[in-house]
């Protein structure tokens, strides 16, 4: 069960983190004037922090949902 919860959770928080990173890169692109490395670095950092934020929240939710079934 633990593995299933982990897999299900990861299928949610990983896309969230990736999208946040991508959104950041797009925003940086739209604003313009940033070197590529800064855009990439920023996207990675924002994505990483988003992963850290979403991981426990999503895992707890999924666990709750799973146990409630």
């Amino acid at each position: 069960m633990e593995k299933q919860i982990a897999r299900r959770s990861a299928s949610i928080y990983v896309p969230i983190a990736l999208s946040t990173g991508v959104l950041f890169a797009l925003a940086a692109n739209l604003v313009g004037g940033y070197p590529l490395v800064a855009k990439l670095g920023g996207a990675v950092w924002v994505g990483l922090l988003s992963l850290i934020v979403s991981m426990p929240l999503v895992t707890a939710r999924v666990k709750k949902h799973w146990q409630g079934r």
Partner: protein
Amino acid sequence: MAQTIQERSVPVSGMTCASCVAHVERALKELPGISSVIVSLATNKAALKYDPAQVSLADIRRAVDDAGYTVPSDELVLDVRGMTCASCVAHVEGALNELPGVLKASVNLGIGTAHVQYVAGMVTGNQMKRAVHEVGYEALERGAAAAADAVDRERTARQDEIRRQGRNLIIAAGVGLVVMIGTFYDMLGPFKAIVPVFLSYKWVIGLLTTPIVLGPGRQFFTNSWRGLKHGVTDMNLLYATGIGAAYGIAVINTLFPTAGFGGEGATFFESAALLTAFIVLGRWLEALTRGRTSEAIRKLMKLQPKVAHVLRAGQEIVLPADEVEVGDLILVRPGEGIPVDGNVVEGYSAVDESMLTGESLPVEKKTGDAVIGGTLNKTGAFKFRATKVGKETALAQIIKLVEDAQASKAPIQKLADWVAGHFILGVHVLAVLVFIFWFFAGYRAFFNPGSSFILSPYKLGEIGVFGFSLLLSVTVLVISCPCAVGLATPSAMMAGTGKAAEYGVLFKGAEAIEYASQLQAIVFDKTGTLTRGEPSVTDVVAPGGKAAELLRLAAIAERNSEHPLGEAIVREALARGLDLADADVFDSIPGRGIVARAEGKAILLGNRKLMRDHNIDFSSLMPQAEQLEADGKTAMFIAVDQTPAGLVAVADTLKEFSAEAVERLHRMGLEVVMITGDNRRTAEAIARQVGIDRVLAEVLPQDKANEVKKLQAPGRKVAMVGDGVNDAPALAQAEVGIAIGSGTDVAKETGDVILIKDDIRDVVVAIEVAKATMRKVRQNLFWAFVYNTLGIPLAAGLFYPLVSVIISPELAGLLMAVSSVTVTLNTLLLKGFMPSIRHSGGRSLQKAGGLQPAHLPGNAV
């Protein structure tokens, strides 16, 4: 089948902050069959209520492990004798596996051993041996080291942690200093001559920083990864992201200076190195100081003597104290500790009970007196019979009570834990926002290449938009650690409950401390609490001036009486050293008094009716009699040879320190109320003597709780002080129930606070300790929140547009360490706390007899 809920305290290691507490609690609550979980960071224990039919200790351990922490376990090998077959193996395994704290026991019949895996501190080797013995086999422990008790284990674990972090600190600080010298090589001025130039090369600085990050800093990465795998975040993650980001960017800028991350001007190796050093410094100081707040419990544990000199079949044998059995005869010589509770059967001595009662003068012990395990025999030798052993002893009960109190959470702590637990995610969100702001707006608008770090001449210079934004984001993560918030309350509660225990005041929970500090009114039960609960002679009125002679005749007449008033007269006469002969004739007249003949005199002693029946005119003494009765005393008339001879007044008298205690409580601004089932006249007389201005008289025992409720009605916090037995409902109704004079049978008492001694001034001590503790909690929380409130905006660069300086990650790490240590050191100031009674020298030394047997279990009057 009936469900049996078990209560267990399970040690948990690896917790560093309030967030860890929340994670462990959550992990345990998710298990089926767990009905209550309270995890304490201060004691590193989880207090659990669970149904063993639904969840085992092994499940609990697994859940804690899965959450990224550990339940420390140990292994013990027992040599088991007497096993002959597979069924014996099952018996022994069954007996061991049933013990609370045993995770797994496997028995090898071939070599006659039992390997027991158990939770350290929950079960002892002796308990295992006893369990094996009970199913018919003999067990011997292999290796003396295995017999180390829970105290030693806890101390060893703490010392290991201190040693581990100390080692980390030496590496991180030592190498970090070299990194600092290398980084600021250009600013060394004349000292450049003695510093090799290669130390300033970026790749050398990088090489030096790497072992710091991968050595002392590794714990933050491994711990946070363990948590992340299970979807939990803790303080370690803040450090790991901070150190990792600083180190990662520094490596990229060193290896690929043109990559656009700020180049060689933004290689913050020293940030990664010193940040690690400061965080490790914080951990080391915390491990060093945190143990000191729990010294009281260790002192109590140390009181238990290791061995007992037991007399069996006329032989003296030395046994481990926990192998003494009820009924054993034990010999105690001068200077030895008393191993268990019991009653003296032979000998005479003075025993120092100060470690349990807080009283300084040794207490006389003679045949029939109770002795308490853990106290120290001073002068003579005596023998006593064990009445309570193991977990039943007063000392074990006190230790359990203090441990439970330290593991409990005050309402204020629950709020602090909730804040700290949710803080880390909030901080990460904030770190994203800070990064986005500085990346998209702040850098362009406010960045000044001439700006620098606080307390550093180092200019930010060519740092790019990404490097600058990342720096501020990382600093926010590092400075926001809510360690201090998490430590603020439990450390103070731990010190407070320990300090109270030193004075013989046992708080059953942190909630009791919090409420005791907020009291507005205090209700005292009269009989047995404010008064002695037994009548004493208060006045002897002899018109002829021969009071002693009058008392002597009254005592002779009453000598054969079993009436409490008569006993009071005899007691007083004996106390005054009067010589009492036997009465020749004695007759008791119910509802009247007694008629006696002694020394050729006819003595009448009783009430008005007796005198009226015998036509004796007491009109001349009637004004005095009425005055005595108005004062709540019982006036007894004495006539000798048909002539009025005088009066003897008997009353329940105040305890020695009742008036002083009430006066001190008044001075503290509390309303003091007395509650009693007695008639109003007697109650008011006692209240006048003790200085209480509000009396609730003629209240039936079952109505006392209602009266307390009425006092609480305006929203006031009320304490009830009673003897803990018949006042139970009122004690339960009050916010703080204080059971006084309960001797040492503490666990059975109702009430939130137990006063070991029969000294009512300890009510004042309890309130003063509670106030001091809560003061400390508030101070700690204030400083912890001030630190975060000021630190976060500074770290986020709020003032950068105005002052052009920012906090470096390493300075943030130092501030974070300082905040935790400040809170712990502030708590340690409680160690010097002394109640006002001690300050003013008001507490008189205990009289011989001290903790009388009347206050001990089984001897209650």
